[in-house]
């Protein structure tokens, strides 16, 4: 037989073990709360990161697109949903002539129906390395030389190593680099220079018609950077006034970002409220359960006193039980949240449909620590009231009541 000393810990653990149903439901409640706290924290942090990444990577102030394709551009940027739309490449120069515009750079979007790696549509983005101010600055930190013809950069979601060959539309491309995760549409995109993109468009004709194949002078969008001191709204209006009739429309970057932060705020409020409700619920329910079981266990507690336990020892026992429940619940809740949030991050991103970028390990650990602390404290907090009551009740009466 095990000769374990009956310390407060052992006694509390034993009491919990022998009341499995009650203990497990309390642990479950505590786990639910810490799950919500940690899962929610990671979700919010990832979305915040996504927005930050979006505003950092979206170097343009205004994007000119063909009329009617504003939404397509946004979904291409945010989610990498492949889209194909074109207008004349002359727009680039037209827009450059507008007052307040400092730099312009054209881009071509080609949606693949199927890529060689997988039967999943991918957005091919052709850009002009000469004028580009969006993609290169962000790439240069990771990639040395500008793209040569036939070379591509792949987004982080595409599983290809530098030097590997990838096939789209029957053309073989050399992967020059795989980009860091951005949490937005760029992750599922493939970047190449304009010439390579046109070549790809011509080849894609075999599978689907593509206007670029016929007309070398087509582009999909123009990225516009403003000169200092000009108001985005004003310049956007000037562009519209001048070229709306030619089918040019504009997307203002700030509005895209504020739209996204708007949805993010909505989601954050929802998560915070849910966490708060669960937190209060968990303290209240634990408190009520402890208090009710206190009445149920009056005789048991009296017996400890009769056998010579001090009030402090008894209060310690009750606190220890709550600490053990809280500990088990908080840890398993956080572990469960980690098993959902991390492996399924891409799935979550596809559900929330917003830029989603997981925070660094440090932030994750901090979030886990804080969530654990808050969730862990609910148990002892809920038990405190009962523990204090224990110091007051009359032992003698308690024994008699149960006779």
């Amino acid at each position, binding site marked *: 037989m095990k000769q374990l000393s009956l310390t407060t810990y052992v006694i509390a653990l034993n009491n919990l073990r022998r009341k499995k149903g009650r203990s497990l439901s309390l642990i479950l409640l505590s786990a639910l709360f810490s799950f919500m706290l940690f899962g929610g924290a990671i979700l919010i942090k990832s979305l915040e990161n996504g927005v930050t990444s979006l505003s950092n990577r979206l170097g343009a102030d205004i994007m000119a697109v063909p009329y009617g394709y504003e939404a397509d551009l946004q979904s291409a940027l945010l989610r990498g949903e492949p889209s194909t739309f074109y207008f004349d490449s002359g727009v680039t120069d037209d827009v450059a002539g507008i007052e307040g515009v400092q730099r312009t750079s054209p881009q071509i979007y080609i949606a693949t129906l*199927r890529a060689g790696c*997988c*039967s*999943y549509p991918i957005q091919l983005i052709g850009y002009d390395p000469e004028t580009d101010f969006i993609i290169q600055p962000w790439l240069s930190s990771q990639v040395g030389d500008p793209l040569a013809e036939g070379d591509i950069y792949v987004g982080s979601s*595409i599983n*290809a190593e530098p030097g590997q060959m990838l096939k789209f539309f029957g053309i073989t491309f050399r992967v020059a680099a795989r980009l860091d995760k951005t949490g937005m549409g760029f992750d599922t995109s493939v970047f190449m220079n304009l010439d390579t993109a046109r070549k790809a468009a011509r080849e894609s004709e075999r599978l689907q018609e593509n206007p670029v194949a016929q007309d070398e002078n087509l582009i999909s969008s123009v990225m516009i950077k403003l000169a200092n001191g000009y108001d985005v709204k004003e310049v956007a209006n000037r562009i519209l006034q001048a070229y709306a009739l030619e089918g040019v429309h504009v997307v203002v970057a700030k509005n895209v970002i504020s739209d996204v932060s708007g949805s993010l705020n909505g989601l954050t409020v929802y998560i915070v409220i849910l966490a708060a409700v669960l937190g209060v619920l968990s303290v209240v329910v634990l408190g009520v359960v402890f208090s009710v079981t206190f009445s149920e266990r009056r005789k048991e507690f009296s017996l400890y006193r009769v056998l010579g336990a001090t009030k402090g020892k008894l209060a310690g026992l009750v606190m220890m039980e709550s600490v053990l429940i809280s500990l088990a619940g908080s840890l398993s809740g956080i572990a469960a949240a980690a*098993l959902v949030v991390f492996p399924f991050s891409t*799935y979550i991103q596809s559900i929330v449909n917003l830029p989603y970028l997981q925070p660094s390990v440090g932030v994750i650990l901090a979030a886990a620590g804080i969530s654990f602390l808050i969730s862990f404290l609910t148990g002892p907090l809920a038990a405190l009231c009962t523990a204090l009551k224990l110091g007051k009740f009359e032992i003698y009466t308690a024994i008699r009541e149960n006779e």
Partner: protein
Amino acid sequence: MKNRNLKGLIVSVWGLLVILVPTVIFPPCSHMLELVDGGTVPMKCFWSGRAEIGIGFLILCGGLLLFFAKSAETRKFISVSTLLTSLVGIAVPAFLIGGCAMETMTCRTTTFPALYVLHALLILFCVVSFFSAGEVGSGTTKASL
């Protein structure tokens, strides 16, 4: 129900879940890959899913064996073999067969993560089951956990 029977049951249910993930709960991408010559073949993730059905079946059987096994040594052996099966269950989608190259494909967003989580938990469970199987040679198992 005895503790050791419960353990066998849990492992069996786990095996069943491993079978259900690629077939019912989170099926992998259903698209067929079109070849240059016009023919079609299922993608890699489809074959990974198929392999997982077999692996799940092995785990299910391990659970049933655990349900009936009485001696500590046998239970330890079953725990080890189930653990190794689960490792293969991770290796198949991770690199033995693999899946789609694109992270946003169904297999990479749901099917594989679900399998990884299931197998990781099962491996943990097998370790616990191994060490709580009792003393080898005692013939009986002590109640634990």
